[in-house]
């Protein structure tokens, strides 16, 4: 079972991964975006880790809802409302249980991913974070590591795609050949989840 502490550790692991990869995310974003993805997410997840430590929400749902809210208020770019909606909707779908199963998380996460699609109006293949999140949500029903692998593969598969959403879409064909920064950071989030599960001894 996954408790509030597991979700706090997931968010902390994501903050660490975003810190480590911030330069790479910004570099990817300078190719097809406005070169602020790494620093924006760094600011956002640093604030998330801080607020979770300070307020220590008691349930998995409350941890993710607070984290999402914090991202929306601190990021300053489109990744704020998108990741904020993902976590907040996932948190709301988890309800008020003190502990949840991986299956419950997989279902809630799928609802969160669907909310991201609705907010941004993007679909699979548009070269966005959804290209990592959609396969991850599906694979999470089977295992944490499978979700991480699916997210990473999905992010890498955005390289040959032409962007159809966001600022990168203004580049048209020139967006082809670059890995999408949003899909790349989405893979970091899901990889941090698998890492947290592994370190905490949760089943696969």
């Amino acid at each position, binding site marked *: 079972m996954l408790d509030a502490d597991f979700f706090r550790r997931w968010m902390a692991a994501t903050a660490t991964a975003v810190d480590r990869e911030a330069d790479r995310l910004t570099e990817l974003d300078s190719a097809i975006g406005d070169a602020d993805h790494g620093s924006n997410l760094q600011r956002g997840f640093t604030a998330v880790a801080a607020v979770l430590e300070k307020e220590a929400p008691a349930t998995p749902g409350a941890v993710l809802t607070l984290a999402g809210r914090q991202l929306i208020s601190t990021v300053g*770019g*489109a*990744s704020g*409302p998108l990741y*904020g*909606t993902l976590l*907040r909707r996932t948190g709301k779908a988890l309800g008020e249980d003190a502990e949840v199963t991986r299956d419950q998380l997989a279902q809630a996460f799928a609802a969160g991913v669907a909310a991201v699609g609705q907010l941004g109006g993007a679909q699979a293949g548009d070269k966005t974070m959804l290209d990592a999140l959609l396969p991850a949500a599906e694979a999470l029903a089977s295992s944490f590591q499978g979700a991480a692998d699916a997210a990473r593969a999905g992010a890498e598969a955005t390289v040959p795609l032409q962007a159809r959403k*966001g600022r990168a879409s203004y580049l048209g064909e020139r967006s082809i050949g670059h890995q999408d920064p949003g899909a790349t950071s989405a893979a970091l989030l899901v990889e941090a989840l698998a890492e947290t599960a592994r370190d905490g001894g949760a089943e696969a």
Partner: protein
Amino acid sequence: MSGAPQVGIVLVSHSGPVAEAVAELARGLAAGGVTAPVAAAGGLPNGGLGTSAELIGRAAASVDRGAGVAVLVDLGSAVLTVKAMLAEGDELPENTRLVDAPFVEGAVAAVVTASSGGDIGAVEAAASEAYGYRKT
């Protein structure tokens, strides 16, 4: 419509100066009486480019007179941030609407309509109709 509360207008841009200037332009073009409350929420609190939920929330609260608040946005994260805030339910005043409109023309139409006492529906319609003004 004297005495009735007016609809508030919030202008959200990635740039602080753009939001302020469009607010100024809309107020100027609506002049000739009591102007509806207009607030700019541009850029980040530190003055950089971007969208700030904090500034948007503060701007919306400052123009809320109880008749609703119409929010006009430029693009990208401005659109997504307001939508995400509306989905939350408690971060913006009651009866706040994201209005689908061109930023500059829509702002002028919204302020003129709100200043003449139009309700939130009329303000939204006037701003959206600004998409129809052909320039060629």
